[in-house]
């Protein structure tokens, strides 16, 4: 099962996904992480600019990821009860 790297930006708390080179607020920009995941997290922890870095399981394909748990789907889309605050790359309908 593919895994994505996610975390929250220190300055804003924004939910972010690792794109392979940088961070994006949109899950569709994320790349699947291979064996380098734990090393990536270790480097992020050391740099201290991304809080709570974690690898999450997803289904789908690049550009069309869907987290497997409800919790991560909520993180990716925004609160299910405030569609007006949805992040844009994932509809709250998928929750």
């Amino acid at each position: 099962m593919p895994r994505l790297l996610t975390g929250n930006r220190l300055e804003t708390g924004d939910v972010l996904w690792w794109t392979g080179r940088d961070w994006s607020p949109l899950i569709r920009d994320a790349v699947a992480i291979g064996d380098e995941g734990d090393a990536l997290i270790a480097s992020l922890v050391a740099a201290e600019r991304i809080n709570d870095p974690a690898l999450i399981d997803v289904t789908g394909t690049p550009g069309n990821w869907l987290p497997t748990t409800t919790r991560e789907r909520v993180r990716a889309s925004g609160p299910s009860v405030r569609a007006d605050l949805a992040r844009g790359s994932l509809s709250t309908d998928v929750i």
Partner: protein
Amino acid sequence: MYRYDQYDQAIVDARVAEFKDQVARRLRGEITEDQFKPLRLMNGLYLQLHAYMLRVAIPYGTLSGTQMRMLAHIARKYDRDYGHFTTRQNIQYNWIKLEQFADLLDDLSKVEMHAFQTSGNCIRNISSDQFAGAAADEVADPRPYAELLRQWSTLHPEFSFLPRKFKIAVIASDTDRAAIQLHDIGLQLRRNDAGELGFRVYVGGGMGRTPVIGSVVRDWIPVGQFLSYSEAILRVYNRHGRRDNIYKARIKILVNELGVEEFTAQVEAEWAELAPLGLDAPQAEYDRIIAQFAPPAFDLAAPDTLDLSDPDFAVWVKQNVHAHKAPGYAIATISLKPKRGIPGDASSAQMDAVADLAEKYAHDEIRVTHSQNLVLAHVKKADLYALWQGLDAVGLATPNLDLVSDIIACPGMDYCTLANARSIPIAQKIAAKFEDLETQRDIGELKIKVSGCINGCGHHHAGHIGILGVDKKGEEAYQLLLGGSGAEDTTLAKILGPGFDEDGIVVAVEKLIGFYRGARSGPQERFLDTYRRLGPAPFKEAVYG
């Protein structure tokens, strides 16, 4: 209302300056997140699913129009134009940015507000009766004593690193509107035959993972000594409360493990040492604080009649307005549970409107209730119609207090990192099933409370119908509990049977209510009373049979 003196303001200013420096050091990378996290939590700042969440303290749920207007300003400038009033009579903002936090704290402190001790293992915001100072059945206004507790507990050096968080509630009537028996300490102010004031003291109540009804450890402590007695309780807890297991760290576990008699004996022994030391506030300080809660100058000529010719207004009065101790006045509750709304949420425009209306019609006082509603406690009956029109204009005149759609719901997994399931959509779906007001009024008083996890911020154990969100292999599921009450007849709700998915729990609640309407002895018998009379078996049969 209490106003800060120079000491209160100096404490807040110093703490704000300290935390602003800590935030700046974190942003510069000079301290790690592991070092910063306990500091931000002690200042009410969490990192939730989508962003930082800030919980602002509203002592005993009382605030002025100016303070409410500042809360609206915070929502507009630093958040996404809304806030969420909580079951601890506080307000939370869901989209706070750390890089703007210093300015936010400065703004809050301008109106004598802050966010510290709204998280962490310390004495949290003191809660109280939302009808304090207005209820006919109280022996005195409980808020001066809540304010004394606030001052005593603020940055108390001995109690800033307790085994676990600690919650205190204070009331002054036999009717419990603050769930005192479900607090770490519950204090009921009473008057004896000699006319003296004193407290009945409950200890060891709580909800969460291990729900317990508090025990009376002292039936009477003179009002002048309740601070030192509270100190003795905290000392025993701080000394013996478990720190090896977070799930067994609350005082309720200690009381259970020691037994009430032994726990009480230890408190009494500690108090015998403390009482002579002069820890209690001098009478002059009591007098100073009590004077600040003096009732407003009521208009003795205010008419005691009400024109109910507008049927919509009449319904709102019947459901959301309570009797006041002063003739010609009333207590108005503003429901934050509108149709298709989110329980406890208010927009900045709504907060501004409430501030305006409070200043115009309610002696500039607003209360937040533990049921996530607002109260204007001192309204002339002659002004109620204009108040209702003002509320209606901003969507705040829903006449559903204590009815099936007046549901407590924690933020749940829509916002909270601790949650296992969403709470708000469940509350919305249940409310939608009973949207018709006549149906709601026919069902009568019914308190539904929804928590998204075992921590129980939605008070599910105190619900006539309680709903608890749980995790089932990464998906949401919901347990159904019945028979709870947070009132003076406190009981703990019990699980009825196997859990449900999101749609199933709504259907189950419909079945429960359908059964109740057929089984009640008459229209005056509440859902809770029918449950207590019949027991769980027929309700279980109605849901699972």
